[in-house]
């Protein structure tokens, strides 16, 4: 029962990601790549993403502190970051990135900075959600004998 409940919970959580626009179809692709040979593929990819993207975010933050702003560089950094985010299907983050790039192209520093705050916000929200999600997944896929593993 609890197991079922957990399964359901995980399913609901997962569905909410899509419904609320946090994740898109790409995430499903990741899931499809997960199999017995790669049992934790999705989590691995997401972990890798968060690790690498934090560095990219730092770069952008630093670049935004320069004066005057180097829009080309900002655009390049953002392009990279956006590429990564796209790989895991981070929909909202991606949307903010696109907005950021628009501002870059327009040379709107103020807009860039504002948008980047949004990017970071969405990025953090998604990270939290995904962490919780994977935790559930792990718990749920844990040894079946311990179906009633206490949740953290």
């Amino acid at each position, binding site marked *: 029962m609890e197991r079922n409940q957990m399964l359901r919970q995980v399913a609901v959580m997962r569905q909410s990601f899509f419904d609320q626009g946090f994740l898109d179809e*790409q995430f499903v*692709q*990741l899931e*499809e*790549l997960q199999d017995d040979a*790669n049992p934790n*593929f999705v989590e*691995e*990819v997401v972990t*890798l*993403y968060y*690790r*690498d*993207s934090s560095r990219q975010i730092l770069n952008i933050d630093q670049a935004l502190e320069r004066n005057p702003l180097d829009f080309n560089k900002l655009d*390049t950094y953002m*392009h*990279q970051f*956006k*590429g*990564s985010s*796209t*790989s*895991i*299907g981070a929909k909202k983050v991606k949307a903010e990135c696109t907005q950021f790039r628009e501002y870059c192209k327009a040379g709107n520093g103020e807009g860039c900075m504002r948008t980047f705050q949004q990017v970071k916000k969405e990025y953090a929200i998604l990270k939290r959600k995904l962490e919780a999600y994977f935790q559930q997944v792990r718990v749920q896929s844990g040894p079946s004998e311990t179906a009633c593993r206490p949740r953290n």
Partner: protein
Amino acid sequence: MTVEPEMDDPRDHFPIGMRVLAVDDDPTCLFFLETLLRRCQYHVTTTNQAVTALKLLRENKNKFDLVISDVHMPDMDGFKLLELVGLEMDLPVIMLSANGDTKLVMKGITHGACDYLLKPVRIEELKNIWQHVIRRKKFDSKDSNHSGNQDNPHSGSGEGGIGSAGTLSDQNGKLNKRRKDQNEDEEEEHDEDGHDDSSTQKKPRVVWSVELHRKFVAAVHQMGIDKAVPKKILDLMNVEKLTRENVASHLQKYRLYLKRLNSIVNQQANMAAALGSTDASYLRMGSLSGLENFHTLNGSGQFHNSAFRSFPSSGMLGRLNTPAGLGMRGLPSSGVTQLGHAQNSSSSTVDQVNFQQVMLPGSHNGSVLQGMPTALELDPLQHIKGVTHARELSTAIDNRTVFPISSGFPDAKITIGSSSNSLLGVTNNTLMLEQNRQGAQGGKVFGNQSSVSVASLNSEFPSPLMDHNRLNDNWSTAAQSSGIHSNSFPLNDCFKQPILHHNNLRDNMSTMALRIGSNRCDVSSVTSMPPQLQDIRADMQCQASLISSNAEQISNHAPPQGWDDHNQDGSYRLNVMCSSINSMIPVNSAVGPTGQGLEPKNTIFLANMDFNSIGQSNFNDPLYMKYDLVNKSAAEASLKLKQGLLMDQRKPQGNHISSNFGSLEDIVSAMVKQNGLLDWIDDCLIQELAHLLKGYSSIW
């Protein structure tokens, strides 16, 4: 497709087990891609650095069937990698990017990508990428199909030519002959449909060595780029075991390369006009490009010419860097380093750059050449021939050879492009040589010819150029001498050595001619040689013009892209050289003892001058101001060029044409002005000329 597993090789079950090399700097994307590829049952190797990828590929060309690479990478541009892989290893490359701009996709295609995928990539798309391997293989092994020798059973591995690494098998030869008879013109790009079985045949890859490429270029040149058909080329080349297909695909690449050069040249022309400032980076680029090509050539190990390699690109650059009056400084130290580097290590990047540059409008149909005459006012189309020839030489380099110089020419029809690499290479070498010369190493410099000369310009010229001893070397050497000598080294040094050492009389002649241009003596020498040197001269001139143009272009052009710049630098120098030559010539005629012979040369040089003038406006060459060249206009032109090339570095040194080595004139003028070097040079030149003539006659 049907795989006929004759061996128990997992690759027999192609596409299963297809060996893919994935390159992407983003670890998330790379990991994702890797997983997808594994899911498709391919054998995957990943790396997040383009240089590592190249290293892996170079280690063993047969280790991979396909390469997938991201476009935006920090250590190397994806397009550059693409080109290098295509040229060196002839493997299919698929580009990946989150950016699906039409322009970018187009760029991928022009650089030779066989596909362009958008991120995030989907597994369905990856499931079909094996077709590129088969397609390539099929094309290459078309003949093997027919011959019946097909021993290599296979197909599966997809390597369309990767198979045996590089040598033509006998069967190919046989097949080839048969094929040739059957397929008269289809060539080049095509893929014959009837050979279904070939797709499963593994065909040994052909390595287009410098020698081979030279033959190829010669053959194409003979026929005219427009009329060149693989079958005839093959016949002309008369190389055993070379199949028509090999030639066809090589021709295709060559044309692409020329086209690219062409566009680059045009671009350069525009840029040159627009650029007024000597951009060191620009120069650098040029040189780098040159080096790259150069390097690439070396890297591939195919082209290279000893000269090429030896060209002390670093040396040159070094020279360039050394303010030593060379003025060549235009090449920023980085450039120098690069060149040097390029030379020694296969800097793939460099190669790429160079290649690009070289791609002068060579329009593979010789249009480039045509352009040249016009621009240069070369009278005789023979000049163009020389140029074209160079172009053909470049074929070997294929796109890679980028003539740095070419790009520079605004109009220079940069035939150089066509002659491509050879010319450029040579010119560069010459320039470089000159530089080297400074140190009075002339002999060495010239010996290397292509490489050396290029040094000044853009050592980049790919080896094909180098091979082109003829004119190129000489020319460049000569040019170099003049240009480079800005340093205390008198042109004498340059002239002396290169000429003597130069194998190709023609080259020597060119060198001499160049020198002559810069030097009064030169002029006379040139004139005296006219009859025999005609050809050479023409070539030289072409080169000179090319170079000049390039130089101009280079200088003018504010090099946006690494390799473009390089090209430009190269061209710039060429221009300079040309200009100097040109200027010199006219001047010389006026002054010089032998006015008469100069005529033809003058024309050519003048042509160059034109270029220079163009460049002039753009450059504010301080050096220029510094010394008053004999021929003001010429000087200016050369200065401009030089400026572009050397950019800043030039310091007008009293003795030499510190300003830009590029312009012979400058050098000469400087020299003349400063001291009685001219006389000295004259003497040297005369001697050399004599030698040259001697040698020349024997050659011809």
